[in-house]
């Protein structure tokens, strides 16, 4: 029986490379959560001692343009091939996308090349014709969250904090959200597959938290590409996220964590929008449920300064969560820029309660 169980679960476990990575930044993560990408590199280099390339020449994979249908698949495949060519220039062959849309794009392109060799040959010709470049398919493609998952035990040893409420001693109750394109496109490319994605659960449970299972746990965050990019369509986006909030509310989450930068941003911003439109929030204090990236969650537990991680960029304020864990912070440092100058506070929303502006 034990052998059968092991064999069965093997299908849900992926190979994650352990060193010599090429980091492909995310358009959305570096724009909305630049501190998360900085934290990821710091964790890999300074704490885990890994070799990871941060190439100034890298560029978009076209993912958002591709899924909103203004970029043809031949173009996307060839742009991806150029990025793989840049990786080849650096002599590494383990590829880490920061973005979940990109993770889906890279896997879709490589799977297409594997199943349709003529598409691979066509892409090689296109790239050569356009740039004179050659490329190689990476040996391993793992999402950045896969790497943190793989090293969750090693990181735990370095963490001064746990996902535990310091006042009650009980585990924090966490909603984990997996970006659709992490596991729904190619289940076997994800840790835990589509049915049992383990990538965030593994981090949360290892670091002391308790995962909430709720009915709409695997529902899309509502991004929908063109359904958000065009103002006229944003009702689709907010309605989907609202469905998730209503489903998770009875379980009283302490916070939400996502491995996709878009999902993190939407679940943060739509709480503000719903509060301003309808006066509705999904917590008891009209402040909303804090939404973190997994890099922010790891960084906080490792003792990074919350305002160097970028937690001031969240519309739903994170201080109640920091207080629960017992993480110290300097309120005067929150809105200070690179120059060390105070930049002023954001405007106060009508309905969503904030720490600032009091």
């Amino acid at each position, binding site marked *: 029986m034990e052998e059968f169980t092991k064999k069965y679960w093997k299908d849900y476990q992926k190979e994650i490379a352990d060193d010599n990575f090429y980091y492909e930044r995310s358009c959305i993560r570096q724009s909305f959560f630049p501190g998360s990408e900085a934290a990821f590199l710091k964790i890999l280099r300074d704490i885990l001692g890994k070799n990871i390339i941060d190439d100034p020449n890298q560029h978009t994979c076209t993912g958002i343009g591709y899924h909103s249908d203004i*970029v043809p698949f031949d*173009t996307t495949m060839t742009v991806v091939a*150029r990025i793989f060519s840049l990786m080849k220039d650096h002599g590494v062959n383990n590829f880490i996308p920061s973005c979940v849309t990109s993770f889906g794009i890279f896997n879709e392109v490589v799977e297409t090349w594997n199943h349709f060799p003529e598409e691979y040959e066509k892409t090689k010709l296109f790239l050569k014709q356009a740039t004179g*470049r050659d490329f190689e398919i990476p040996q391993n493609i793992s999402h950045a969250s896969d790497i943190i998952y793989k090293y969750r035990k090693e990181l735990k040893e370095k963490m001064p904090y746990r996902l535990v409420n310091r006042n009650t001693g009980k585990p924090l109750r966490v909603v984990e959200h997996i970006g659709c394109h992490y596991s*729904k496109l190619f289940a076997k490319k994800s840790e835990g597959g589509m049915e049992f994605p383990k990538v965030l659960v593994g981090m949360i449970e290892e670091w002391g938290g308790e995962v909430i299972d709720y009915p709409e746990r695997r529902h899309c965050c509502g991004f929908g590409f063109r359904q958000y990019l065009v103002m006229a369509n944003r009702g*689709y986006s907010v309605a989907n996220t609202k469905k998730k909030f209503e489903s998770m509310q009875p379980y009283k989450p302490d916070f939400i964590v996502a491995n996709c930068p878009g999902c993190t941003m939407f679940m943060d*911003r739509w709480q503000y929008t719903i509060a301003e439109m309808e006066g509705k929030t999904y917590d008891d204090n009209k402040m909303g449920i804090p939404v973190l990236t997994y890099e922010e969650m790891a960084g906080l537990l490792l003792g990074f300064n919350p305002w160097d991680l970028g937690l001031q960029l969240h519309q739903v304020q994170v201080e109640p969560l920091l207080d629960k864990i017992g993480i110290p912070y300097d309120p005067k440092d929150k809105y200070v820029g690179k120059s060390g100058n105070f930049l002023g506070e954001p405007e106060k929303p009508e309905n969503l309660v904030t720490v600032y502006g009091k």
Partner: protein
Amino acid sequence: MGKFYDLFMQDVRFVEGLNACMNCGVCTAICPAAEIYKYDPRQICDIVQSGNEEKIQELLSTDTIWYCGQCMSCKARCPRGNTPGLIISVLRKISQETGLFTNSEKGRQQFAIKRTVGENILNTGYCINIDIVNPKLHPEQGPVWKWYYENKEEVADRLGANYNKEGSGALRKIPQQNLDEVKKIFEVTGGLDLYDKIEKYSEIVAKSMNINFEIEGINNEYFFHTYMENSGKHDN
């Protein structure tokens, strides 16, 4: 099979995405768009699979194919291994190439996406960066985003970014040689050709609707028409 079906079969995503749909409707049951819009991926598979040219042309001209949010939940659930989300991508491509996208309100929005995300890819090397998310076009982003937008270099660089500067790091200025090569890829692979078609057909329809159209930028009536128009006739 007819003209449209032959075009579909030239796209590897169609070959991969539709084998033999048995019309069970699991895709519709799981689909977030079907819950919100008058949208039924099962019916789309049925029409496409029928090969009925008249019905396919009608489909390519309507709002229906533009309702999908590309979450790809359908791929995960189809018992036959089909992917309605991929079929949608192929239908949208042909709708744009033939100009049929301008016959529907949701189809015409492709112009707004091309003028924002599309131009941004070629001009900056990013699909999205801070500069493109102007609070005036994105009120839902809230006051913290507005604060960040107004102080972007100070804030982003405090968080380890390298905003609009040479060298590595988040939000760096991507060296021109890379942008040149990306643009050349768009030229060789049909990306620029698709952009041109979106522009050409949009200009024609803007004139027929008597709406101001400019050959570049977003400061024109047709951009805001496609970006903001909502007839309210789409919901389930």
